């Protein structure tokens, strides 16, 4: 049964069907096989609806909305200018600033796609002008966006938290360490890349220019303050923080900067709704598929087959990393989490692994999957907004992927990278 299902799904996917069809087909075959016909498809509909029901998923459209408003207006650009004013003169400074901008934007956004658009949009032209190759630039942008996924808030962590019942606040704090580690790794790599290719630096900004940039970014600096202060100060939940960002972004772009009118607000909301719909129908279809897998108790069979119960904590963590890495390469990472997290839950519990560490490692794999071929969503986003062919977008990615996998291994052996801050805050 399982091979019929997976086989059909992969074939339909590769043939270019809309991605909801492979997922729907997978669950359809499952339902027919489980119940001997299509008489119980009501339940499939129920599961599709159940998939998009969790209240915390509301954060997804809200952050897309906020980021879109900021990118269309001035907030995103002004934030980037600050980073540039301080690091533009350093060797590889523009590249490092790009990674830095992703980190900063990450404190506002939980989505890698939003980060690719918001940071990559304005910075790619500047990097090309400064003499970086497009191959390096594109790879840096789509991979540095992963930082935003690990720095709180993070859609991946929200969904993992909901599915696994893990504290989202703890996950958020645990993401900071790995996020900053990626920034460090990419900065070092960028430095040597710039050195080897002799990329010129920008002139050092004067303190007056820096001051000016800071002043111009005073209002947009409210975003991190709202989110971090708001969540950790007990004003609102992560989901509500996303909506608060929308409100603040609207306040800035419509009233303070007067960059956006009602017409654009409408267009932005519509575009957010559209992106939400095409992503959420996949989340729903993924939930229906996951129901079949769960009902037929397939994962139990597979996991029993590989003997995960006898592996011990390191074995389990490696297995989880590999499973999620491969899963996220092929399927929307949210769907992967919805399917795989419940499957691994018993063994995680039995091994006594810290669900926050597991969540951080899984979130990292989701982030990596956003930029790995064949289905990385950031690749598609980059193709869409930069109008570059598929192969060109991914050509420069291997060194970045290797660094990120290195971080995965490091997390397994040195969990303190993630847990240090969490323990400081909560233990």
């Amino acid at each position: 049964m399982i091979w019929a299902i997976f086989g059909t799904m992969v074939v339909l996917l590769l043939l270019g069907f809309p991605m909801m069809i492979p997922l729907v087909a997978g669950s359809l075959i499952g339902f027919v096989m489980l119940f001997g016909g299509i008489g119980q498809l009501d339940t499939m509909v129920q599961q599709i609806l159940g998939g998009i029901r969790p209240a915390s998923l509301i954060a997804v459209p809200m952050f897309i909305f906020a980021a879109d408003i900021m990118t269309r207006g001035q907030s995103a650009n002004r934030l980037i200018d600050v980073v540039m004013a301080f690091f533009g003169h350093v060797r590889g400074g523009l590249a490092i600033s790009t990674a830095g901008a992703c980190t900063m934007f990450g404190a506002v956004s939980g989505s890698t796609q939003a980060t690719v658009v918001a940071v990559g949009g304005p910075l790619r032209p500047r990097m090309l002008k400064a003499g970086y190759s497009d191959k390096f630039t594109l790879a840096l942008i789509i991979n540095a966006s992963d930082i935003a996924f690990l720095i709180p808030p993070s859609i991946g962590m929200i969904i993992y938290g909901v599915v696994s019942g893990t504290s989202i606040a703890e996950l958020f704090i645990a993401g900071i360490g790995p996020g900053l580690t990626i920034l460090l790794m990419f900065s070092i790599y960028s430095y040597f890349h710039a050195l080897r290719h002799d990329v010129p630096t920008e002139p050092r900004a004067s303190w007056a220019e820096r001051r000016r940039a800071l002043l111009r970014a005073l209002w947009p600096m409210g975003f991190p303050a709202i989110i971090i202060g708001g969540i950790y100060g007990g004003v609102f939940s992560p989901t509500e923080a996303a909506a608060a960002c929308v409100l603040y972004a609207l306040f800035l772009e419509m009233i303070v900067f007067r960059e956006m009118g009602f017409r654009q607000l409408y267009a932005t909301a519509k575009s957010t709704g559209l992106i939400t719909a095409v992503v959420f129908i996949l989340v729903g279809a993924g939930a229906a598929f996951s129901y079949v897998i769960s009902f037929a108790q397939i994962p139990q069979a597979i996991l029993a087959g590989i003997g995960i119960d006898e592996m011990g904590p390191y074995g389990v963590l490696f297995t989880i990393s590999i499973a999620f890495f491969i899963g996220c390469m092929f399927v929307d990472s949210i769907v992967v989490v919805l399917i795989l997290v419940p499957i691994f839950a018993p063994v995680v519990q039995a091994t006594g692994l810290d669900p926050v560490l597991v969540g951080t490692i899984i979130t990292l794999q989701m982030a990596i999957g956003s930029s790995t071929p064949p289905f990385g969503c950031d690749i598609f986003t980059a193709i869409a907004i930069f109008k570059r062919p598929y192969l060109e977008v991914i050509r420069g990615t291997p060194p970045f992927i290797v660094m990120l996998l290195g971080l995965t291994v490091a997390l397994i052996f040195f969990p303190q990278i993630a847990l240090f801050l969490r323990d400081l805050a909560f233990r």
Partner: protein
Amino acid sequence: DTWRYAFEEALHEVQGQFAQKFKEEVEANSDHTVQLFPFGTLGESADIMEQTQSGILHFVNQSPGFTGALIPEAQVFFVPYLLPQNQDQLVSFFRNSKAIHELFPPLYEQQGLELLTMYPEGEVMLTTKAPVASPEDLNEVKVRVMTNPLLVSAYQAFGATPTPLPWGETYGALQTGIIQGQENPAFFIESTKMYEVTDHITRLGHNNFTTALMANKDFFDGLPEEDQQVIRDAVDAAFDYIIDYQTGLSDESLAKIEEAKPSITITELTEEQRQPFMATAEAVEQEFLKIGGPQAEAILEQMKADLAAAAEAAGGPVADETPTEEAEAPAD
């Protein structure tokens, strides 16, 4: 045959213990096997209920608090201070209640369900950041409750600010201070680590978390008499088992919590301290009569009569108006 049985909690929690006992009994006394699906594996509480109604699942354990969306009368278990705090009275009530054994089954039947049993899961306790001894102490305190109008009005009547919040965000919200309290049975407070983010556990005695096991009616009616008997016997055995299992469970859970967090305070309010809380029950009763469906009044009256009978049978003092109120379901 393989019978599929879904419930709202994890295997190691009360509903899971009940399910495992049921499975053991059925499999020992028949050729059938029972497949268990714990919380979340086939969807949320409403999902497994619907799947049982459509016959994909054979058995479902759902707390009346959730069933209230389908059978409004079931919300009677949200009325505070309806169920007794005395364990013997409580057990006697669940065994003999006419409301449970005669009035509720036809209501479940209308939804295609055979009500097999209702059983208690444990005293609901309030955990908060600041100590609570009177309704005044709850003033401005935001208490997380599950989304239910009766539960909301119960906490409003207590003087608190009831704040519906998804269960997944409750821990974080307590931690960061968005809310300052939540309620659950002790075993659930222990297993979900709610005590880590609150400092005081208060036993208001306002409710005992109640849950129910039911079967798909067509499935059940279609079974030969001996299979039906196997099921009934297994339910009885599981009921006895869970009552026994529960004796001392709250104390055990509280002891574990105290061990993990010595600074926690656990306070059982005195009869006198409970009076002002009990005084608010009347308002919630009225609300129940308003939204509890056509049978609300009959059910409430019968419950009260059953409780008086249970109090007499157990030889205890006549019920102090009995607590109720479905806590946020553990499975939430």
